[in-house]
């Protein structure tokens, strides 16, 4: 079903170029906030929505469109392709970037790091390159776009390059990104299978031996895992995401990580064709570990953006678990279930894009209003910034996986597909499943914990600093952006059936089947093959609302008593001060206590008779000490060894030449 006239694809292309143009326009008057903020960013948002619309159309159409541009390597012009898989992620990109751009329009102010015009350029290049990644159809243009994405985001991350830790964050980020890209490069080198054609079409056609195919898959996993923040390749993420300006953090967490998911799906299920079942175990196990790891560290953070970054790691873990399941099922011939798992994966990607963007933007507003990222200095903002507070609450509940919001749907789908795992004809997998489910569920519950901490400490309670008294709510552009994303969360939560219907073409493309909808009702989600299981968020919501409203009504009618405001009672203790409430550290304490083994903790406890008692605690990841620092040291040591070669005496240098000469001559004589 190749449509001959690639109208939609051309549309996407035009929109991407439009983004580039907007970015360049930013350079016209680089210092002008009005131009960038009031004109360009909203314009970019419009393009984003347009992109979502176009891609959505192609998704519903389920068509494949191809296009070849006379650019790129000789003999390898740029191939572009729009198919269901890329469409989904284009929708994701468009929809969430739309909201984020609107927000960014109001967010970027003068005098924050680089000039607004420059930011505008980098921002829109970032968007465009992400879009390009999604429609690229040959290895070369894919990698170019991929690295362009990394590069533009790197410059965005280092906006405030005067701070040493931000520079460090940027460095680690770009390094990991580059290493990952090199792995991808090698992966494509394998995939082209000696045909020396780097188009994806040729790679689909290439027949690889099992060994080569596995090598390709693992390389892809490393490459894309490094970008997605899969433990243990995640170290850059909690550094880079908080460092960036909040809209950029939102883009990186919400959208950029998903391009890695797209890439793995593209390589693992599309280019490699028929995956072996055991490939799935690797992302599955890593994913499960990532869930647990991410959420634990999220629970003990005291910086709100770091907390969200770690929660992104957790969600990526969920997505990779889904991918792993998909591959295991697909590799064992359970196509229908594989489709279900794939559905869960895609759904969770969409969800996370929206909710994480929402939350990051929320923190952005808080940051702007208070200048604080440290949870220990926030609190009570629900009174000062109601808009942000209530909209963020939706995101919080959604990411905690509560029905009837969207986070729950994907968790539900994932668990349903997990319940099929005893059909897999491999004892090992069967053993793995209970553990897997346990970890997923535990992760979900802990996510709830994290989110209560996040929301409660920032928005509830009493302000922990006097300065918070004059925090202001966000501007109207920000509000629109936030509202859009919040509505997205609701929509995805309430109309899963429609979403899944749209995703059907993707499962058909990758797995070869689409999940069968067992129920006739438009409001009832019953995708599980051959099992009487269903979930109807709309009914659920209405029922809940009905009961709640009824209660309210009855209470109001039956007992009309007035409500009196009084100082908080607090169990009869004396005057209530803000310092009495639990701090972020305190809230994380049970987790820290339970899972000490994971953390590298350094405490500074006050002495009993301390006049000015001070309590400080710093938590690092052990992985730095266990893996990365030793690696760096090893290289350092090697460098020292290498340096001995270069020790200044010319006669030694001559000796090198001499020996080389003799050895080579000997070799030449031997042969």
């Amino acid at each position, binding site marked *: 079903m190749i449509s001959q006239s690639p109208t939609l694809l051309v549309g996407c292309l035009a929109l991407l170029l439009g983004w580039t143009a907007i970015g360049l326009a930013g350079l016209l008057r680089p210092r002008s906030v009005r131009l960038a903020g009031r004109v360009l960013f909203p314009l970019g948002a419009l393009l984003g929505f347009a992109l979502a619309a176009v891609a959505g159309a192609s998704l519903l159409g389920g068509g494949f469109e191809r296009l070849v541009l006379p650019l790129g390597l000789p*003999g390898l012009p740029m191939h572009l392709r729009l198919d269901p898989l890329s469409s989904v992620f284009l929708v994701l990109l468009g929809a969430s970037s739309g909201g984020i751009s609107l927000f960014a329009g109001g967010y970027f102010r003068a005098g924050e790091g680089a000039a607004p015009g420059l930011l505008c350029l980098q921002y829109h290049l970032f968007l465009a390159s992400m879009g390009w990644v999604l429609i690229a159809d040959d290895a070369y243009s894919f990698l170019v776009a991929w690295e362009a994405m990394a590069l533009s985001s790197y410059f965005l991350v280092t906006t405030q390059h*005067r701070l040493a830790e931000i520079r460090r964050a940027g460095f680690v980020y770009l390094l990991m990104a580059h290493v990952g890209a090199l792995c991808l490069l090698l992966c494509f080198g394998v995939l082209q299978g000696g045909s020396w054609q780097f188009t994806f079409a040729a790679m689909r056609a290439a027949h690889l031996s099992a060994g080569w195919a596995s090598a390709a898959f693992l390389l892809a996993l490393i490459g894309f895992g490094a970008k997605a923040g899969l433990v243990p390749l995640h170290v850059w993420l909690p550094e880079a995401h908080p460092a960036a300006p909040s809209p950029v953090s939102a883009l990186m967490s919400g959208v950029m990580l998903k391009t890695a998911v797209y890439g793995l799906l593209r390589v693992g299920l599309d280019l490699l064709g028929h995956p072996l079942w055991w490939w799935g175990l690797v992302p599955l196990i890593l994913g499960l570990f990532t869930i647990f790891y991410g959420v634990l560290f999220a629970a003990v953070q005291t910086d709100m953006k770091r907390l969200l970054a770690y929660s992104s790691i957790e969600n990526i873990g969920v997505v990779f678990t889904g991918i792993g399941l998909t591959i295991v099922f697909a590799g064992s011939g359970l196509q229908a279930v594989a489709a279900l798992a794939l559905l869960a994966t895609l759904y969770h990607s969409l969800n996370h894009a929206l909710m994480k963007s929402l939350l990051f933007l929320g923190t952005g507003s808080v940051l702007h209003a208070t200048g604080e990222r440290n949870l220990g200095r926030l609190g009570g903002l629900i009174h000062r910034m109601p808009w942000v507070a209530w909209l963020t609450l939706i995101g919080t509940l959604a990411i905690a996986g509560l029905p009837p919001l969207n986070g729950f749907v994907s968790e539900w789908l994932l668990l349903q597909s997990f319940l099929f795992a005893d059909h897999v004809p491999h004892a090992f997998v069967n053993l793995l499943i209970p553990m897997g489910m346990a970890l997923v569920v535990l992760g979900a519950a802990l996510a709830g914990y994290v989110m209560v901490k996040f929301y409660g400490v920032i928005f509830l309670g009493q302000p922990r600093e006097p300065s918070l008294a004059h925090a202001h709510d966000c501007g109207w552009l920000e509000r629109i952006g936030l509202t859009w994303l919040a509505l997205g969360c609701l929509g995805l939560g309430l109309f899963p059936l429609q979403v899944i219907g749209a995703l059907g073409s993707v499962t058909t493309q990758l797995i070869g089947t689409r999940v069968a909808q067992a129920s006739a009702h438009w409001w009832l989600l019953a995708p599980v093959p051959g099992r009487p299981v269903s979930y109807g968020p709309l009914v659920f919501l209405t029922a809940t609302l009905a009961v709640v409203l009824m209660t309210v009504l009855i209470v109001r009618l039956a007992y009309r008593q007035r409500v009196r405001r009084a100082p908080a009672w607090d169990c009869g203790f004396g005057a209530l001060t803000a310092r009495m409430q639990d701090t972020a550290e305190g809230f994380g304490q049970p987790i820290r206590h339970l899972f000490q083994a994971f953390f590298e903790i350094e405490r500074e406890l006050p002495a009993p008779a301390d006049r000015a008692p001070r309590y400080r605690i710093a938590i690092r990841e052990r992985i730095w000490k266990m893996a990365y620092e030793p690696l760096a040291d090893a290289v350092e040591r090697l*460098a020292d060894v290498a340096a001995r070669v270069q020790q200044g005496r010319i006669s030694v240098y001559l000796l090198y030449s001499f020996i080389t000469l003799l050895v080579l001559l000997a070799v030449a004589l031997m042969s």
Partner: protein
Amino acid sequence: MALLLLLVLPVLGAAVLGVVGAARRAPEINAAFSLATFLAACVLTAGVIRHGSLLLGAEQFFIDPFNVFLVALTAFVGLTTALFSRPYMRVELEHGRLTAGRLRLYHSMYQLFMFTMLLALTTNNMGLMWVAMEGATLSTVLLVTLYRTPGSLEAGWKYFILCGVGIAQALFGTILLYVAAGKVLGAQGMTALLWTHLDAVKGQLEPTVLALAFVFLLIGYGTKVGLVPLHSWLPDAHAEGPTPISAVLSGLLLNVALYAVVRSKVLVEGSLHSELPSMMLMGFGLLSVVLASLLLWRQRDIKRLFAYSSIEHMGIATFAFGMGGPIANFAALLHMTVHSLTKSSIFFTAGHAAQKAGTQLMERIRGLITLSPTVGWGLMLGSLAILGVPPFGVFTSEFLILTTAMRTQPWAAPILLAALAVAFAGIFSKVQPMVFGETSGRRLAHPPALLPVFAHLALVLLLGLYIPPYLADWYRAAAHLIGGP
């Protein structure tokens, strides 16, 4: 005709500048001669594109796609470097690091150097090529010591001795070649050193002698390419000489030397029909990449840093030539091009940066992007380009090389991967703080010449996104000439 101009103009320039080289307008004269040379090169190139390879001057000169693109490149970089050195050398003069006399020396030697490069490229006679290569050393050695600092003297001395010794080996190798060829072509024929004739009969040449000859040639010219472990002169010479010279050494001399190596490899492979030459090249290449990328971590001097990166990239190109085959050769040629463009532009910016900060020590260069955004961005983009980040051309060649390696030499791929990662960390961790952060440094009397920098970067960017078809065909033809498994 164009060829004649191409060769005569620099000599003329050397002569003229030898007289007026200290005049106020001398830099402009220098640039003018380079420009003329470049135009001649263009004409020549156009001729080759139109009529294919040419044999000129009693077969003493031979222009084929392989060397003509290097000729064009050489002339171009020569021109841009001359442009760059205008404000740069003026500033040096005002800072009192130079005297008028030395400036004269600089200008005239610069032209002479260009001449030797072009001669080495265009000649058909392996002997003459040797003479030119030696000439290149001699003309630059006094430029390396231009500042007369202890460091520069030491660097110059090492440069002279190591390259001199190396080149002597190359001469011996040439002789062996001559002997072997004489057997086939008739000993006393003047033709026995002409590459075209050798190429024609390479199948019949005596293998063992050719193998020996190749070893001598490889050691000889390899020293100038800066292949580990023959590289020791390179970082010193690059770091201690004036920046324009570092730029042309890195950007041109290495290429020309590599060109010589490849020319000899073609002959030897033709007669040997064995893996030997490829293996040697690959070995040298890998060794260079690994050692250089490790040593990058220990650098404190900005020009030394990029000198090592030159070693690394020459290693990559050598490795690719070693792998052989149309794609790898293509990639290697492309790599030579983009590397010399990028690297010279980096040296330009590094030079300006060092002048602004008043030192070449990297920990003393900070916050360029705030001090002078253009220089800062130039250095940042240049470094990213040289590190193989798309959409710059270096990525294109590395893409082809790595993918080829993954298929044909899987054992080498992980080594390359690791080395490239190490190199990335090594360079970027040093460039980032120089570009970003709080600034330290001063404004300069003469505005930096940024046209060359961004011209180069633009070209590299172009090559990353789009290689014009005729250029591609040209590379392909060259790659075909080089051949290999």
